[in-house]
């Protein structure tokens, strides 16, 4: 059975966002990276030979909304640190979910990171899988999946 990376990534993102962040997103066919996003979170999976990097880039509006949902508090009380911390958890769960679907115990999940990236357009590198997602029709974020030698 072929491991469909893009579909697995979409399924995992949907599951995590719906279960823990109470947000249902729609995936778009457009080329990933053509929107401006404000925050990025990232996690590595590695084994002896290969490394997988999963990056999520989201708008500040979407980050604030899912952080408020995650923490169960109003958006006006959300700080930048809250958003970064929640985005780290988001990518951590996406990485863990992706790993679980790979069904290969040789991989190790790394420690997630999150940062502000300052509203710049980013593009997927040629070797990366890139997908856009929207929330109620508005661009909300992009996800990138990159395999490289360890």
């Amino acid at each position, binding site marked *: 059975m072929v491991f469909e990376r893009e579909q697995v990534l979409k399924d995992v993102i949907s*599951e995590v966002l719906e*279960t*823990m962040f109470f947000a249902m997103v729609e995936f778009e066919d457009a080329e990933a990276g053509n929107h401006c996003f404000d925050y990025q979170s990232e996690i590595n999976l590695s084994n002896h030979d290969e490394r997988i990097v999963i990056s999520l880039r989201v708008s500040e509006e979407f980050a604030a909304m899912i952080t408020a949902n995650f923490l169960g508090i109003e958006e006006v009380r959300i700080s930048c640190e809250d958003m970064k911390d929640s985005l780290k958890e988001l990518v*951590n769960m996406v990485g*863990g*979910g992706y790993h*679980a679907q790979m069904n290969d*115990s040789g991989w190790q999940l790394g420690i997630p990171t999150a940062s502000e990236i300052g509203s710049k357009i980013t593009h997927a590198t040629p070797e990366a899988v890139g997908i856009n997602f929207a929330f109620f029709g508005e661009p909300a974020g992009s996800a990138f999946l990159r395999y490289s030698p360890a």
Partner: protein
Amino acid sequence: MSYNILIVDDSRSMRKVLLKTLQLSGFEIGECLEASNGREAMDILDGKWVDLILSDVHMPVMDGIEFIRSMRDRDICSDVPVVFVTTEANEDRLRLLMDLGANGYIRKPFRPEEIRLLLSRVMGETDGFRTGTSVEGCDF
């Protein structure tokens, strides 16, 4: 009966979410203590009695595996139930956690019902909890 809980996770957000989940589940909480890694948790356990520990696995300084190994070696806290709430998908590492004395684990993302079901079993409670969701890592 209320329980003193220790939540161990390097994510402040996740600690808040776990506490809120416990509260919403009707789990009666006495004191709730927090640590951001296993080392901090061990320091807390030196001076405080807790009834239950919820811990992450992937943490800086001291991870969940080292934490439970240290705990189970120390008389003062060797019997305290520990449940891991983790993104860990490596079956070998999950098995190792159970072999080292974890009372169960649950994978993130989780639903509140899953936490409630697992904790009710770990703490020996049978009433007031709905069932019907799968819970991983229970060895009852």
